[in-house]
């Protein structure tokens, strides 16, 4: 198999006496969607925060495209090409889609904003994901639905040429139709060659779009399996600890 974009080995993280991650391994590949599942408190968010640089790990190694890296702040993560779409999205409602997509990285010439360039690139990023739900790139985010906002947040990572995009519960607050749209978007993002890690509690969604499923149970990675080699009942078993994964990696 190809080299993973990101490979975590034996990651540990404690908060005082509480060991939250106890030697976790995880791989994510370009063009694949990897689900990160596990019960509440299993350590999913903690694992992600280490990758995004907001909360560095205590031990273990991180390889990014084969190189060992030590990520200890968010700027470093985004310089490598790691983008995290947080559950609360963090968009500015008073700004439009283009302005949000370029926030903090505005393009300028002679000190003034290059609005046409940014508008063009934002439109192209949305088109590359075949987004059809957005009417105008100059709409204010306050006028967008939850699914459209998620779309903007995901497209922002495309714009930044991310190699690894991590989505924390992207469909948690969405209805059926919008969930469908966002999942399609995630699929297209991966098809464009990006490695995607998606945290979700919804196994139906997971089985719909993910190529790989990684299961965290009490701070240990109890399974990382190809979706087509498993089924929902088994995965529920791994998540709740009533079943142990015996297969080879």
């Amino acid at each position, binding site marked *: 198999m190809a080299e993973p974009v990101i490979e975590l080995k034996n990651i540990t993280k404690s908060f005082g006496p509480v060991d939250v991650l106890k030697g976790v391994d995880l791989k994510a590949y370009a063009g694949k969607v990897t689900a990160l599942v596990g019960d509440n408190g299993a350590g999913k968010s903690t694992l992600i925060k280490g990758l995004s640089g907001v909360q560095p790990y205590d031990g273990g190694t991180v390889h990014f495209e084969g190189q060992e890296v030590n990520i200890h702040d*968010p*700027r470093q993560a985004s310089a490598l090409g790691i983008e995290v779409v*947080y559950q*609360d*999205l*963090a*968009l*500015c*409602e*008073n*700004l439009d889609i283009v*302005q*949000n997509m370029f*926030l*903090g*990285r*505005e393009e*300028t010439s002679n*000190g*003034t*904003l*290059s*609005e*046409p*360039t940014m*508008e*063009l690139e934002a*439109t192209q990023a*949305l*088109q590359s994901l*075949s*987004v*059809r739900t*957005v*009417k*105008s*790139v*100059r*709409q*204010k985010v*306050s*006028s*967008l*639905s*939850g699914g*459209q906002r998620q779309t903007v947040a995901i497209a922002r990572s495309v714009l930044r040429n991310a190699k690894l995009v991590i989505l924390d519960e992207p469909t948690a607050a969405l209805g059926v139709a919008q969930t469908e749209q966002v*999942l*399609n978007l995630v*699929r*297209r993002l991966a*098809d464009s060659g990006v490695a995607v890690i998606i945290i979700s509690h919804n196994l139906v969604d997971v*089985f*719909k*779009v993910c190529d790989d499923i990684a299961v965290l149970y009490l701070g240990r990675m109890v399974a990382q399996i190809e*979706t*087509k080699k498993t089924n929902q009942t088994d995965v529920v078993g791994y998540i709740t600890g009533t079943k142990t994964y015996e297969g080879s990696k």
Partner: protein
Amino acid sequence: MSKQETSQMSAPLPPQAIASGHEGNLRDQISAYGSRLKNGEMGALPAVGALAVLTGLFAALSPFFLTKLNIANLFVQAAELTTLAVALVFVILLAEIDLSAGVTAGVAMDIFYLTVKAGLPWQAAIVVALVFGAAVGALLGYFVAKIGVPSFVVTLSFFLAFQGLALVLLGDGGLFRVDIPEIKAIMNESLPTWGGWVLLVVMVGLSAGLGFWDRARRAKQGLVNRPISILAIKLATITILGGGTIFFLNLNRSQNALKPIEGVPIVIPFVLALLFVGNFFLDRTRFGRHLYAVGGNPEAARRAGIKVGAIRIAAFMITSTLAVVSGLFHVSRIGVVEASAGRSIVLSGVAAAVVGGVSLFGGRGKLIHAAIGAMVISMIDNGLGLLGLSAGISFLVTGSVLALAATIDALSRKRSGSSVLRS
């Protein structure tokens, strides 16, 4: 649904054009504007409406209202308030407030007076006053951004402390004449009549230049432009309104046949330049974009790598510094520095910004809104004064207008928020 079907759905679709809001003919553009209004993005429209109503009302009630002398007075009075309101917009955009802006200006002008008295040239004294303003702003910003004191409280404490400082600097009941012809001229003299026409040419020229430059840049990227008629309408509006006003101000408004008074008051080009430069920074630079972002969602701005604290400090510095400019205009108009300067005008400044359509919730509003709001408040003051009504009535009316404006602000915010649920 199986995974198979999903990947089938995700097969690349032919790229489809996503609009940018620039499409369509004039009629489409007007209907798009209409639906933005319906969504609660009313901007300065209520204030412009108020201006029209007030003008009609006062013109009908007082024969003196539309006289040349009074209109010129109105512009001069509004210039001072406009500058303060424009100053305040920078912190209001961050959903903060600066109650001390007026007294900061007052103390800065006391310092200006003392510096001149100490023998320095007035130009140097202006620099000293502006630097004082910037320093006060930096201090306020530091308290708000780094220590986390709510701006209401820290600026209230400066509001109180600086009233004391003014008394200390000038002595109890202190009131001193400022006799510098150049300073006096700002509010009391006018441009030669040809100067007014130059001003018009510069205004129209800059608007046209920016308008065509924007269109050219969009065209270069292959993007659609709005119908050119929109730019034409905008330029025609500036030409007609500006030209009409300048023509009017260029007429002799003196009651003394031997001493004609004519021309655009010198302060007007200063205020217009301030509006133009400020607007340019807010709309066309990263700093402006980041200011709006911090006002809209500080956490999102922080995660986008924006230095939120630095933006806050900068905003307070701009507000205090520009407030000093309005203080200078005040001194120019009344010709004295006094210990009580700046106490009450700051509230009118906040009112002007809000009445003009700048949101107290942060992130929404433009400098021109503050200018229009300042015109509304000045007009109420001026008109009621002409009708012989007491200052008490003027406060009552201004207060009611502010309450109305704040209500519109809160409702339109609710409305644009709830559109998420509707769509």
